[in-house]
């Protein structure tokens, strides 16, 4: 039942693809998700794929990656193997509840949606939208507005499945929840999954999201995640991006925070052809705390771009953004960080920093902080640096007998550790540490003992 389409003129082809398959989409999905499609495709018709003329995409050239010869599957491909057989997460002692998306579709030996004893609901978004239309409908499409950009519109028009997580009031989820995004197909593929995480009042959870490519084909992921953190809830997310050089990942995350909630995200971009992370946080009510961190490592011709918008819409909130990058070879990177403080958001504290190390003359980094502050009683700071390794520090290490290569690695690693150190799940932190160290040493950074060895 899989439909295959080639894309030539990107926007027109996508529009045609939608027209040709809207019946299938609507038939396969629930009303909640279908209700957004027409508006979404209209918005996409208006906006198209963001081009470099769009200030927000100045350094991230999307057209070439969209122009490749992808297939689009409107139903999950039947797989004839157990995912466990080819993929085992080898983070030792990581005590997790594992959820797997294969090419954007939730797969499980058990039910598509599980309601645990403590009332936590986890599993497939498609299934959740069927079983809990009111709960999903209350939040779906409310934070990731299709008017925001062409990518969100495109995702909303096509989205069929993804991960749904609901943590009820006063529940603290004891196990970390791990989402593994696996891309595996013999053909080049576009994947557009959609996630929704709802944290009710006083709830608490930790999420680990790992992205992997397990076959050599080209992949383009355009995913959207909506997160709602109600009063006093706490959510910590670590996202590890580890895809091959022929994979493009466009990931948009929208976080809505209510009174005194605390959300942290830490995106570790370990490997990937092109990665674009959009993170948008709105602190809607008083007393919120938000941390948005990221570390990226690029080499060859890889590109990683992080765009953040942290909106202080209420007083007494505190936000910290910290992004770091190490760029080797002809790697390129961009950081665009916006802090927006509304007129009545007094006593705001907002901090932002972006530090980058260029290891070669050919690597480039564009960094642009943007502060829009309309309140007067605020503490804000921002700083961005693009530089080489500290020569004085390098010399100091070498005068103690530490070889040049080792000394450089020590400094790069120390630089990266500021972000890794923020990971609160200890076994995961140690593992990320290890992976980053290997990656910086130029060793293979595959983080699973899978049988596939893809580019």
């Amino acid at each position, binding site marked *: 039942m899989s439909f295959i389409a080639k894309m030539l003129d990107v926007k027109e082809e996508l529009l045609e693809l939608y027209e040709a398959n809207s019946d299938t989409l609507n038939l396969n999905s629930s009303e909640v998700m279908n209700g957004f499609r027409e508006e979404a495709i209209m918005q996409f018709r208006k906006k198209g794929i963001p081009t470099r003329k769009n200030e927000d995409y100045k350094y991230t050239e999307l057209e070439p990656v969209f122009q490749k010869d992808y297939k689009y599957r409107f139903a999950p491909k039947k797989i004839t193997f157990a995912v466990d057989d080819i993929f085992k997460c080898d983070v030792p002692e990581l005590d997790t509840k594992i959820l797997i998306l294969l090419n954007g579709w939730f797969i499980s030996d058990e039910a598509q949606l599980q309601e645990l004893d403590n009332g936590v609901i986890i599993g497939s978004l498609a299934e959740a939208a069927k079983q809990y239309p009111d709960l999903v409908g209350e939040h779906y499409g409310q934070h990731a507005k299709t008017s925001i950009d062409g990518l969100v519109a495109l995702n909303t028009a096509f989205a069929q499945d993804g991960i749904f997580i609901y943590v009820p009031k006063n529940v603290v989820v004891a196990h970390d929840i791990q989402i593994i995004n696996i891309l595996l197909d013999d053909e080049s593929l576009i994947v557009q999954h959609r996630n929704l995480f709802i944290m009710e009042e006083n709830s608490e959870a930790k999420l680990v999201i790992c992205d992997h490519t397990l076959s050599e084909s080209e992949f383009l992921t355009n995913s959207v995640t909506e997160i709602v953190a109600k009063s006093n809830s706490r959510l910590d997310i670590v996202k590890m991006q580890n895809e091959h050089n022929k994979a493009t990942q466009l990931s948009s995350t929208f976080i809505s925070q209510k009174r005194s909630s605390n959300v942290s995200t830490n995106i570790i971009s370990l490997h990937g052809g092109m990665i674009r992370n959009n993170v948008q946080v709105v602190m809607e009510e008083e007393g919120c705390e938000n941390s948005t961190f990221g570390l990226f490592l690029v080499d060859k011709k890889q590109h990683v771009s992080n765009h953040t918008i942290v909106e202080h819409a209420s007083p007494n909130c505190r936000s910290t953004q910290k992004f770091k990058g190490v760029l080797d070879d002809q790697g390129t990177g961009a950081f665009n960080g916006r802090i927006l403080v509304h007129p009545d958001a007094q006593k705001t504290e907002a901090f932002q920093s972006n530090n980058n190390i260029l290891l070669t003359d050919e690597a480039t980094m564009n960094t642009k902080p943007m502060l829009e502050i309309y309140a007067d009683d605020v503490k804000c700071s921002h700083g961005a640096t693009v530089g080489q390794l500290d*020569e004085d520090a390098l010399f100091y*290490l070498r*005068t103690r*007998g530490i070889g*040049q290569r*080792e000394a450089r690695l*020590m*400094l790069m690693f*120390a630089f990266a550790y*500021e972000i890794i150190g923020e990971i609160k799940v200890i076994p995961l932190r140690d593992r990320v540490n290890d992976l980053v160290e290997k990656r910086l040493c130029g060793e293979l950074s595959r983080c699973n003992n899978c049988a596939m060895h893809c580019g």
Partner: protein
Amino acid sequence: MLHIKNLHASIDGKEILRGINLDVNPGEIHAIMGPNGSGKSTLASVLTGRDIFEVTDGEITFEGVNLFDLNPEDRSRSGIFLGFQYPIEIPGVSMVNFMKTAVNEHRKFRGQKAMTAGEFLQLMRDKKALVEIDSRLTNRSVNEGFSGGEKKKNEIFQMAMLEPKLAILDETDSGLDIDALRIVANGVNKLKRPDNATIVITHYQRLLDYIVPDFVHVLYNGQIVLSAGKELALELEEKGYDWIKKEVDQVQI
């Protein structure tokens, strides 16, 4: 042990060292004094291989080896140590990891096996006691957030860990209160052996009350203009540098 002949070095085309001659033998302590900007730290940097300085003339041999053939890490492994005038803060590199890597690189160079974790911790403990450095400091990142005095103590600690044949201490006394000064000097004296040598670069006579030099040299304007025994330090303390400057400048006119 160390022979410097007619050493000229410059930075950005500006000549800083203008013909230095100095011989250091095992067991000796040399003090190099001189006014600010005369080239003392530059000499230390050139000896340890800092590449921003260009050596335009002269030679340096250390135990018969041409020093210019060795990169900074090999100079260190061969036994040269520099206590920096301004030790560098390296956030994110732990003191323990730093020292373990350094010690093991030295051992590898000598064909010895890497230390076990236990042996290394024991060594750390012994040397910490020797220079009276707090564990609080050795548990942190290299020099990060250390006070001026703590940084200087940390240099001596590193020296104790690496047991160099030739230690060059660049103004290790500046910024130290009298207690810290005594600890630093004590450390240096305890590490003194008949087969190693020390070059103490200092501004003040003060340190030389504790570390008694065999020779005192005055470096001025990129040249050693005066060398004598330890009594020279006292004379300088009393009379300052002006009389030397005057004499030298007159001779040059």
